């Protein structure tokens, strides 16, 4: 009986570990959706602007990198959560 309980507890620990891994994977995947779309919109519009007005390309590029940096931060926070769930 005790042996069975110990085995069940071990199984539960294993299950918890597996679930946290699954959660980490799904969490990172979900966190990457929004920023992916967002960076696409930022860069796409920047390219449109540069194609229309090549003389403003320098300014547009700087602003584009700023926009990418802000958008990308969300995906990176997702990545950090992944690392924390998986290894910490």
């Amino acid at each position: 009986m005790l042996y069975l309980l110990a085995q069940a507890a071990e199984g539960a620990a294993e299950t918890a570990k597996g679930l946290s891994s699954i959660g980490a994977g799904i969490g990172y995947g979900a966190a990457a959706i929004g920023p992916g779309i967002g960076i696409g919109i930022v860069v796409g519009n920047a390219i449109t602007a540069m194609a229309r007005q090549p003389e403003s390309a320098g300014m547009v590029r700087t602003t584009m990198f700023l926009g990418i940096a802000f958008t990308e931060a969300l995906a990176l926070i997702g990545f950090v959560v992944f690392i924390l769930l998986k290894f910490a």
Partner: protein
Amino acid sequence: MSVAFLAALEFPSIKHLVDWEDLALKGTPLAINKVVLLMWLAAIIVFVLFIVAGKRARSEAGLVPAGVQNIVEFGIDFVRNDIILQTMGPQGLGWTSFLSTMFFFIFFCNIFEVIPLIQFPVNARMAVPFVLAIFVWVIYNTVGIKSQGLGGYMKSILFPPGVPKFLRPLVAFIEIISTILVRPFSLAVRLFANMLAGHLLLVTFGVLSAALFTKTVLAVILPLPFAMLILLTGFEILVAVLQAFIFTILTAVYIGGAMNPEH
């Protein structure tokens, strides 16, 4: 802790991702590990680079830039024209030395990622970007209070112009959280996570290539991960420059925003 391990000739265990072994002063808060050594190396490189280039620029030979002077002048020119003048305007030129030092330090910390025998980006440890972000946080708040006064600075943070009256409490709440908490946090996490993710990508394909380097038939697919490893190394050089640029330009944006309130 062997020499082969320090020189990145063998792969560390996965627990080193969050916990690196100490080399000296073990167990104390001042313990020294590979990351600390690399950080000192980056600081020394920046220091020597600027001293040497500055000496050359002041001598007669400096009239025609060459060698190290070229690199430093290019970097400072880049910080001046593409970062400061684009975000802070001419009145931010006093920050050139601070921002270019920061740019070069972060760049050298990052570029260690692809240098053989080192292959570790210092900024993939949260401590380094975090301290840099706190540094920036203190500076832009000090600049804001100095140039606008405590009341004026709080007012410009809390109540950005052009907000309808009934939305003001909500906007004030969001703005104070964004300025006090989210800015330094996202500044640090952006640099840290980018470098760590790049490092893990390189490690993944490095381990895969090493595992396939056998005399069995599996060696046929070895070129695929190896080609990917080479491509990613090039990509990581780009990321190292880009992240140094982004950290510096965001610092410039924050300091510029603190100097000049929006009207």
